[in-house]
């Protein structure tokens, strides 16, 4: 009975059924993610073209990134995807405790990622890896590599921060009870979060693993 009430409360105009509404949310997010694929794909294409034009400068530049931070961050994000997947599944199954715990863990991993990233940025700045005057490497094309390093990690961090923000809001709403666990928002957030994770999965080999051998 409360289940039915909860489902009715989660249903919004103009949907006819909650099932369809959930499908709509997932579909809408997937279309949006298709758009995000093109967004990051555009930058990755630019990166790829320059990498094929200037392989040596890019390899030399990639060696300068901090692989420890990069690897730790990859592990953090992949783990956050695990907790996010569990949270979304938990919400769909109506498991309140699991959902809340896993959302909190996801947010924590996300913030952990940003903290590590902050340390890494600080190190990069002290190592003069910001393109411009006083840049550390000699090959001018190495500056292009670092242009992409800053840009791509920066845009990724913005995406991740958005995800953290939404996860926090949804978590608080679920905790207070103002948002039903049946709401499609959890699954939608999950899809977005996994996508942000996937972007990093590709940034990691491109930015950190080049020129190591």
């Amino acid at each position, binding site marked *: 009975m409360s289940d039915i009430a909860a489902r009715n409360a989660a249903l919004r105009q*103009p949907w006819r059924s909650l099932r369809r509404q959930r499908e709509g949310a997932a579909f*809408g997010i997937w*279309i949006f993610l298709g758009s995000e694929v*093109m967004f990051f794909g555009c*930058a990755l294409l*630019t990166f790829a073209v320059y990498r094929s034009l200037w392989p040596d400068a890019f390899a030399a530049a990639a060696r300068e990134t901090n692989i420890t931070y990069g690897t730790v961050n990859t592990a953090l994000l992949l783990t956050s995807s695990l907790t996010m997947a569990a949270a979304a599944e938990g919400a769909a199954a109506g498991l309140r405790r699991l959902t809340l715990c896993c959302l909190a863990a996801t947010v924590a991993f996300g913030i952990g990622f940003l903290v590590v990233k902050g340390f890494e940025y600080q190190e990069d700045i002290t190592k003069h890896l910001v393109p*411009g005057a006083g840049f550390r490497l000699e090959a001018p*094309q190495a500056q*292009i590599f670092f242009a992409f390093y800053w*840009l791509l990690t920066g845009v990724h961090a913005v995406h991740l921060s958005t995800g953290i923000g939404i996860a926090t809001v949804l978590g608080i709403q679920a905790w207070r009870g103002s948002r039903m666990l049946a709401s499609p928002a959890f699954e939608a957030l999950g899809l977005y979060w996994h996508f942000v994770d996937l972007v990093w999965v590709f940034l990691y080999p491109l930015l950190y693993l080049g020129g190591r051998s």
Partner: protein
Amino acid sequence: MSGITAERAIPGAPPREPSYLTAKTGLASWLLTTDHKRIALLYMAAITVFFFVGGAGAVAIRIELFTPQADLLSADAYNRAFTFHGVIMVWFFLIPSIPNILGNFLLPLMIGAKDLAFPRLNLASWYIFMAAGGLAVYTLLSGGVDTGWTFYTPLTTAFSNGNVLAAAAAVFVSGFSTIATAVNFIATVHLQRAPGLTWFRLPLFVWAIYATSIVMVLATPVLAMVLALIFAERAFGIPIFDPLRGGDPILFQHLFWFYSHPAVYIMVLPSFGVISELVTCYARRRVFGYNFMVYAILWISLVGFLVWGHHMFVSGQSLFASLAFSLLSFIVAVPSAIKVFNWTATLYRGQIVFDAPMIYALGFIGLFTIGGLTGLFLASVPVDIHVTDTYFVVAHFHYIMVGGAVSALYGGLAFWWPKITGRLYPEGWARFAAIMMFFGFGFTFFPMFIMGYLGMPRRYHVYPEEFQVWHVLASAGAVILAFAYLLPMGFFAWSLIWGRRAPANPWGATGLEWQTSSPPPEENFHTPPVVEQGPYNYHPEHAGPPALEREQHQPQGRQP
């Protein structure tokens, strides 16, 4: 030529039930509405303003070009004028106009839905659009930007002294609005169709908006990223397209045109949808080759992504790439030709009524044919090398985007005006405006083909004297064109107060949107419709009195 409006207005219409316009009142009921019909009107207001702003740029350009010397504008002022004209017209008028006004209003009505799939996202999208528009106007007020709407590097990143950052930010933000709207449309078409409304029963306008939305979702983010790259390079000095550090300005052009060529289809595909609705209704005939029309729309939106390199034949791109893009560009001409032929063939054995929307539609077909055929010239590598960056190109894309898209916008507005406002526009004036638009357009832009082949480069505020005669012709034509644009705004506004009340279906059209009252109630349909037939179920065999004829047309839907 007998109009149907005059005969159709039903005297002594029944007392009006509350419509979406009157259901709620107060400013907040408009600014916080999630009703797609009201949001369409919000867009209409905003886009009209931008049309005037962008139009002011066009006026400045045409006055300046009256003489070969720089009389009115300095070089920098002229560069800012055409850049601003381009930026505003492309991103704040042409791209949002038909999808966001007519699409927003009609899409749920045409598929028998209560609203778009994500109504609040729809409202958010309008606010984002307004924020972007605010940034664009700020760009103008803070001195403007002088890079051309194409933002080519390294001029944009290192040399321009205009406010590039604000302009890029404006376009970037408007992209969010475009993507949000497009996601909404796609989800709506997939998930909100009325029972019985299968894919191949959809009106072509819905197909067109659907295909446009796909293009928007997949192309706009590329523009967003490339503008972000420009922004970062200019604002923070990080090199991305900087030739001093091994950067490649041609790569920028690839990415830019990957968006901007499909953007042309964002502007013109919705027009195809509008024209299909108008031609069928006023020829009283089923559209010729419905399936081919659908495939043509989808084919255009797919192959439209693969032809961008024809903007770059002289850029330093390799000859191999140029030839590949040339082949693809010729191939994309085929579905456009199919559409023109099919509209023409729809007239065969019809009962053609020459009301204003039909005149706009016929004008569209003519202008679009010229625009499309000159596209063949531009797809030919050697000819394009001569005419690219000249007035030939200027004329070509204005034929498609202004002759095409704007004719369709005005025709569509007139056609659905009774549905949107519940009032009939004055038919005589509208016919006059439609004819004037066709000829004014021709006078303005046809001379540009000639001076383009003669070698007049675009974006010149001073030019050799031998081109003056053509510029004077174009500027004179522009005066006619300007009146043709302003006149409908006048009589549309007039009709809001003095126009006659419109019945639910004044044109005897078959679409679902005509099965509800004019203007529609807030929830669109009193009882949700069920569809049992394909679209355009017109019967030209019987040419009886209009009132009788209307009953003979099976509406697409029924009230269960």
